[in-house]
């Protein structure tokens, strides 16, 4: 039986396209930040929200065994949900320091928010225009980044911290 080259090319092309589509369907197209785990944070200078003369940089974070960098705002409802976990971490676990970065918020509103719910932060930085958030690969708040003393990102939490993520953090820092 003679099979023409034309038919082979058409058949191969169809199979090839189907394989590509099949591979494409299997792939998860939701954006996530898993690729950032293991990367290092660098080059930032963060001003304290209530004291324009006080700054923190990556060099200061090297002194902490673990640092949780948490982006929050008074206008962010899910930030209220995760706040109890932050307070729990701050009150019970000395090996972790928590840096809060107040995102596109008013100073007075942020202070009222912390007065009402409690302050879990060892340092509160100001990110009035959101530019600092880009340095940390943030695309919505709340988001939290757990780093070690080598400034390596160990865990990134998109959305509010829940019980499962809280326990994951404890497993890492214990």
């Amino acid at each position, binding site marked *: 039986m003679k099979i023409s080259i034309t038919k082979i*090319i058409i058949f191969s*092309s169809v199979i090839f396209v189907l394989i*590509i589509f099949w591979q494409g369907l299997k792939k998860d197209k939701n*954006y996530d930040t898993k*690729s950032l785990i293991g990367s290092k944070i660098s080059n930032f200078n963060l001003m304290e929200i209530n004291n324009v003369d006080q700054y923190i940089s990556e060099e200061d974070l090297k002194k902490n065994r673990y640092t949780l960098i948490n982006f929050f705002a008074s206008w962010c409802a899910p930030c209220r949900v995760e706040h109890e976990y932050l307070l729990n971490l701050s009150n019970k676990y000395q090996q972790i320091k928590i840096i809060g970065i107040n995102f596109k918020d008013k100073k007075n509103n942020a202070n009222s928010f912390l007065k009402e719910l409690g302050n879990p932060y060892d340092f509160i930085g100001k990110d009035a*225009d959101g*530019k600092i958030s880009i340095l940390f690969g943030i*695309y919505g708040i709340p988001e939290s980044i757990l780093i070690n003393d080598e400034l390596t990102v160990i865990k990134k939490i998109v959305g509010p911290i829940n019980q499962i993520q809280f326990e994951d953090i404890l497993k890492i820092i214990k």
Partner: protein
Amino acid sequence: MKVKIFFFIISFSFSGHLFSDDSQTKLLEIYKNLRCLVCQGQSIADSNSDFAATIKLVVQDQVQEGKTKDEIYSFLISKYGEWIVYQPTLSKNNFLLWILPYVVFFLGGLLIFFISRKNKQNKTN
């Protein structure tokens, strides 16, 4: 208060002239190649989201600092991964995406060649 409003109007009216035409074109090209991560199928250029607005500010800063397009893309890829750019850089994960058009072009050419040869043979027979 009046003084504040006056300065706001003045700064607002000059804000459009902060970048030259070349810089504006460069900014627009960069925005168009950046994906808005919180939007449905929109580029940073198309989106008015909070995220897009912040990315625009950062890109404007970097253009003013004299950084090239590739440097800006590299910076954003280091923060958000390859997904942030519409036109990814060639790597082992996406080489198929780059060579596929050439493969299809080559196969199409072969197909046309064989079909025309077959038609010629049929005519001569």
